[in-house]
């Protein structure tokens, strides 16, 4: 995909429109003790608080039903807030209309209007505002350029591929000059190749525009690759919020360690610790912890090889070993090995 380097995205969003910067505002989004329950029943979101710094890429990560999409929809104003407050650019928007909060939402299904061309879809919000046809179409074309879709401006949504539809949906959201762009599982409908491509694109556009993106996903890989701030959710609560590196290296509890992947959650002398799989070995290590185990499965992953083992109690662990180390002395399935790690690689988890 050719990226038009001459094209200045900033120009589309003059600073004054994006953020009236009085120096006091450090956060684009503040969620204060927000809860959501339906008909007085169980809480879909349970008293969460979160502050998203200016111009950051934030991923809400969690399994389905964890409340991440509900949280996003409350930010957008498409779902009412049962309790608590939502602030955007220091302004309380808890009860504000969706279009009056400075947010724009990109829907999972993209929700492009099927009876309008790509150009008219992007120009829709300007038409609502009463902008003249020639003017709004010219403006819409600028935003289609931003997402490299100007050559397909006159196609109908049904004539566009999933990736192209997504670009149009992105342009349609951005033309409203949102302070915060909300993306509901934006990559889940794409094939794996396109997913990685669009991921890079989203990050590029976020960086160029300098606004906050809040992106809901169930893919830890996506969250780690994109985020300045990863928010791991489970059962309507925030398990951990931090930088991608913090969440990966210092998971607060067993849920985060397991969900983020690449970790073994091990009980050592009554303590729960996590050990990164790439720090584990399947040879005896001097000064480390050694567990007699048996190799149950081997997955070749290119630069790394993932080895699954089962200890004497039947508990499963995995180790990720570089391919060179693996092929120096390749183990086979069924082989008895020592699953081992060093004490400094243990990370203490909350009970």
């Amino acid at each position, binding site marked *: 995909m050719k990226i038009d380097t001459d094209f200045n995205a900033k120009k589309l969003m003059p600073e004054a429109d994006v953020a009236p910067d009085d120096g006091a505002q450090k956060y684009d989004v503040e969620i204060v003790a927000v809860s959501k329950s339906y008909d007085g029943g169980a809480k879909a979101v349970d008293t969460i608080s979160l502050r998203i710094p200016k111009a950051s890429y934030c991923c809400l990560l969690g399994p389905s039903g964890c409340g991440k999409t509900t949280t996003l929809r409350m930010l*957008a104003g*498409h779902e009412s807030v049962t309790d608590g407050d939502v602030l955007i650019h220091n302004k309380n928007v808890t009860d504000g*209309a*969706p*279009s009056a909060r400075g*947010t*724009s*939402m990109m*829907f*999972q*299904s993209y*929700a492009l*209007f*099927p*009876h309008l*061309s790509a150009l008219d879809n992007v120009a*829709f*919000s300007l*038409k*609502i*505002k009463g902008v003249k046809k020639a003017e709004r179409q010219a403006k819409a074309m600028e935003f289609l350029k931003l997402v490299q879709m100007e050559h397909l*401006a*006159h196609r*109908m949504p049904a004539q566009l591929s999933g990736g192209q539809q997504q670009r149009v949906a992105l342009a*349609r*959201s951005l033309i*409203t000059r949102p302070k915060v762009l909300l993306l509901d599982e934006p990559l889940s409908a794409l094939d794996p190749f396109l997913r990685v491509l669009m991921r890079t694109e989203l990050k590029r556009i976020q960086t160029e525009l300098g606004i906050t993106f809040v992106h809901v996903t169930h893919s830890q890989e996506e969250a780690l690759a994109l985020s300045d701030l990863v928010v791991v959710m489970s059962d309507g609560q925030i398990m951990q919020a931090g930088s991608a590196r913090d969440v990966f290296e210092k998971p607060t509890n067993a849920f985060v360690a397991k969900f983020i992947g690449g970790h073994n959650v091990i009980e050592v002398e009554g303590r729960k610790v996590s050990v990164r799989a790439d720090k584990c070995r399947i040879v005896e290590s001097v000064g480390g912890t050694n567990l007699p185990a048996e190799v149950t499965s081997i997955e070749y992953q290119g630069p790394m090889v993932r080895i699954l083992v089962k200890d004497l109690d039947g508990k499963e662990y995995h180790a990720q070993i570089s391919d060179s180390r693996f092929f120096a002395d390749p183990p086979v399935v069924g082989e008895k090995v020592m699953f081992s790690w060093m004490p400094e690689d243990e990370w203490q988890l909350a009970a």
Partner: protein
Amino acid sequence: MGTKRSASYYVLSAVFAVFLLFLYGPMICVYLLSFQGPEGGMSFPMRGFSLTWFETLFTAGGRGVGDIHNSFVRSLRLGAIVALLTMLIGLAVGMSFRRRYPGGNFVFYSAIISMIVPGIFVGFGISLTLNMLGMRPEWWYSGIGAQLTWSLPFAMLIMFIILGRMDKSYEEAATDLGASSFQRFQYVILPLILPGVIGMFMAGFTSSYEESARAGLNIGTGNTMPMELTGLLGAATTPVMFAVGTLTTLFMFTLVITTLLASWSLAKRRQLRLSAQHA
């Protein structure tokens, strides 16, 4: 294709063929007999082939065809108004059902029951009520009202299907982009459900055009087509009635095909306009 068809394929095909025969056979008989020669009677065999009976229909000056011309105009007038009202009320009902509201179930089931209740008793009930109130039935209120009890449930079901199929996120997206509820309706919902809205109009018209059980007692003076035909067929002695059947079928087909062509050319024009912009 070397695959052998199973026995059930042949059995079901035969059943379907018989079904088609029963469905269209009698109608084809009517169409054929309407071209009966001048000497021919109301049944086969055909004695020649002519347009005599069509000519009779338009020149007989009332002989054997009763008040058929005026009744056709009355049916057309009634049908058009019922169709328009069906479309508008159906649209409003459908839109109201996108959110649950207290009493919503009552509205739904009372409309469905109206499809089940025997029409003749609905008509009789309306007529009886009018009588008790000391009012004379007239086509423009009791006639239309009686027919709406029949056409509205269909319109409602059409709207439920169309709106149920519509992705809710279209509306949310429009809201997100700043559209008011009226703009949402105007720019997003209506264009998307337009085929269904036209469908409601057509369903309203066809159900009115052939309806007499409900309208019969409430139409006031002046028969509609189906009422006039019921009367005429009992006393018919010539194939002129068959000519009426052929023409009225032709009329309905023309109506449906015109509607289809109109919506097709509408879509085509939109496409052309787009490619013109592109050029």
